[in-house]
């Protein structure tokens, strides 16, 4: 298994290099550069040219890329073209809230999705299953921003139970006032619970109908052991893979939720950097999010292997 993990990491490194090149190429393809976009309509051509020189954007693209890549290899993510400060600052400023939001969302989503999935899978076609299915499918059909705005309008503005936004909130306030987390986490979790519980339910239904479960039943394995030992591990595999996929979405930030609740997270920083053509920041953020995605997917594979060892996957 260690060999497998190392092999995956090596492939991951190649993927990261390709990604870095791709992100650089794509941002270079966008019209305008940081100097031109900075002040669309207010700067004279002379000022734009001077700024371009100052930001050293007049060098060939290849040179700028290799400079950046050398820095990254030395552990330096580069300097933001907008703030003039290190990209690492942009990252640490925005990653904190995003990670917190992602962690809390995980803690809510995983138990809830497993519970709903297993319960409805065990009673396939029953009243409970049909209720859970209808609710999750309906919720899944409501776009994030609609759900967010509805919740804010109802719970915050009308009833005044929860804060409507994170306006003026510092990191310390989040711990002091956990109520701030409720609405953003609810909106993100709603969609994820739907996705994951459907996966778990489908897994449970499939496994329950499998030959080895029927055989175990016939041998008189107690119901509880059957569920925990045989059904759940097998049924969880698609769910865990799905979880890894949504995990890197969460770490990349959820733009809609950040915008509606004024959460200063990674997605806002990334979109801002793209709009400002702040290439080093875009590169840095994309790289870190990509590393997170690779690690998530590797972790998911290893966990799945632990649950259901399959030699043909991990040689």
């Amino acid at each position, binding site marked *: 298994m260690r060999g497998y993990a190392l092999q995956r990491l090596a492939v991951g490194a190649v993927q990261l290099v390709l990604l870095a090149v791709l992100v650089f190429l794509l941002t270079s393809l966008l019209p305008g550069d940081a100097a031109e976009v900075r002040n669309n309509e207010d700067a004279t051509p002379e000022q734009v040219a001077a700024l371009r020189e100052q930001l050293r954007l007049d060098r060939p693209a290849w040179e700028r890329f290799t400079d950046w890549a050398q820095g990254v290899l030395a552990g330096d993510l580069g300097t*933001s073209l907008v703030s003039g*400060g290190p990209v690492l600052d942009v990252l640490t*400023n925005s990653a904190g809230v995003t990670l917190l939001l992602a962690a809390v969302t995980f803690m809510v989503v995983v138990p809830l999705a497993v519970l709903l999935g297993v319960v409805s899978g065990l009673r396939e076609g029953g009243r409970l299953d049909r209720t859970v299915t209808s609710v999750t499918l309906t919720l899944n059909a409501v776009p994030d921003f609609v759900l967010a705005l509805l919740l804010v309008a109802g719970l915050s503005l009308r009833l005044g139970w929860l804060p*409507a936004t994170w306006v003026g909130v510092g990191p310390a306030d989040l711990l002091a006032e956990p109520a701030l987390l409720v609405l953003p986490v609810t909106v993100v979790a709603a969609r994820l619970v739907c996705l994951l519980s459907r996966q778990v339910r489908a897994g449970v239904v499939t496994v329950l109908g499998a030959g080895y479960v029927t055989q175990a039943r016939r041998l008189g394995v107690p119901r509880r052991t059957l569920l925990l030992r045989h059904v759940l591990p097998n049924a969880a595999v698609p769910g865990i893979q799905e979880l890894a996929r949504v995990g890197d979405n969460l770490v990349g930030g959820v733009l809609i939720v950040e915008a509606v609740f004024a959460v200063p997270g990674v997605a806002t920083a990334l979109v801002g950097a793209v709009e400002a053509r702040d290439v080093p920041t875009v590169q840095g953020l994309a790289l870190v999010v990509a590393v997170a995605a690779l690690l998530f997917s590797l972790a998911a594979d290893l966990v799945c292997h632990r649950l259901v060892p399959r030699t043909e996957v991990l040689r």
Partner: protein
Amino acid sequence: MSTFRDRREFLALAGAAGSAGALALTGCGAGSGGGAAGDTGDKGAPRRGGQFRALFTGGGEAETIDPHAEALAIDMARTKAVFDRLVDLDATMTPVPGLAEKWESDAEATVWRFTLRDALFHDGKRLTPEDVLFSFARILDPKATTHFAQGLLSVIDLKRSRGVGRNVVQLALSRPSAEFPALLGTLGTAVVSTRYRDPARPVGTGAFRLKSFRAGRSFTAVRFDDHWGGGAYVDELRILSADADARGNALRGGEAEYGHEMTPTFARTAQADRSVRIVAAKGSTAHAIVMKCDRKPFDNPDVTLALKLLADREKLVEVVLAGRGAVGNDMFGKGYRYYPEDVPQRQRDVAEARALLKRAGVLNKPLSLYTSSVATGFVEAATLFAEQAADAGLRVRVTTGSSETYFKDQLSKGVLGSHRSGAMSIPTYINDRLLTTSSFNASGWRREDFDARFAKAQSSTDEAERTRLYGELQRTVHEEGGLLMWGHPDWLNAVSSRVRGVTAAPPNTLDSARFDKVWLA
């Protein structure tokens, strides 16, 4: 070396400065002056105390607290809190005293003398002429790439400028400019102290002292008790960033006191909500379709006139601005100083437009209109105008481009384009958009005689004469220019119902996003 041998050589613009002073005084009366502000609750004496949270569209890492590099509305609000300018602009873009209590020029408008107020910096030192000269030197520093007042203020000849006594600054200009005081009331012109080095540690004279600032996150400032204007009412001012939806929700949820630049949609919902109030400055900015006069078919003034006759302005205002705005008359600056109010409103006349187009032989050729979603309403206005043009059989093809580079791309793409302008004085607008040398001459309007007439108006020290000359320039643009200025949107801000002392004012003017006169009931 003094340019003045005798005080009598000055032509005191006492009329202008004096009346402006009176305006400012009434304007300071607890914010009760001026405004169609809907200041329903401004009764009672102002109270001190409290925290005031104001919300703006954020700029993330691009935000700055350097007053000379300010570019975004949120930057300007912070600058206004911490610093002052020599001169400010009132709601009609007329200069009113700021740190300069009065000013006068010589007969050619090339040498100006500004008398400074008794003002204290946050470090307790008195404002001196040296501070003012230092500020202009800093703004005009050739190494600075983000000081946007450089273009306008390059007219100052620093080598010949100097302090006179302890409270007079004499500024020499390289060419005559009767509009010079108004230029000192624009973006990026705040006065800093000679001890100002690090933007993170500002030394200003403003009504608030900086407590903390993090770009894209938060700004906190506290009242400066020794401010020359009497000081602010609130104890603490926080300026924060949030998107439009979040601004509205935070205001309604009691998490903020002021929201800058709200949408007409929010204004409609706010009507039913007693916790917030909309403060609307009528017709403050401008929306236009531009026709490039240096390209076919718009090198023929008949064709530009035909398109102006084609637009259904009422419909555009109703649809694109959700009815919150005034109909435009193909000139910039409705309601501002020097605007010729007596030019009759242009009405829609499809038959006449069709006749003109037919005569010019352009009916069968489709015209390209380049737009983007960079400003709210651009794409909507372009699409609606294309439909209106079809009423005369004219085909207009709308192309949507990248928003980040729109204003530069628009100069080269399309014979028609979307255009909008923020609030600025009419001379500044002409200078930036309608001269041969203007970098962003959106309508390709390049005429030597127009440039010369503008220069003449700029150097005329007689206000009535200047008003007449600017009026004529505006009439020329109205008749022959490439600006189909169809509407002037209202400028919508919102305050929570506890807030008093907020005056309706166009952006970029003294009372816009001004928080030293606000108080909480």
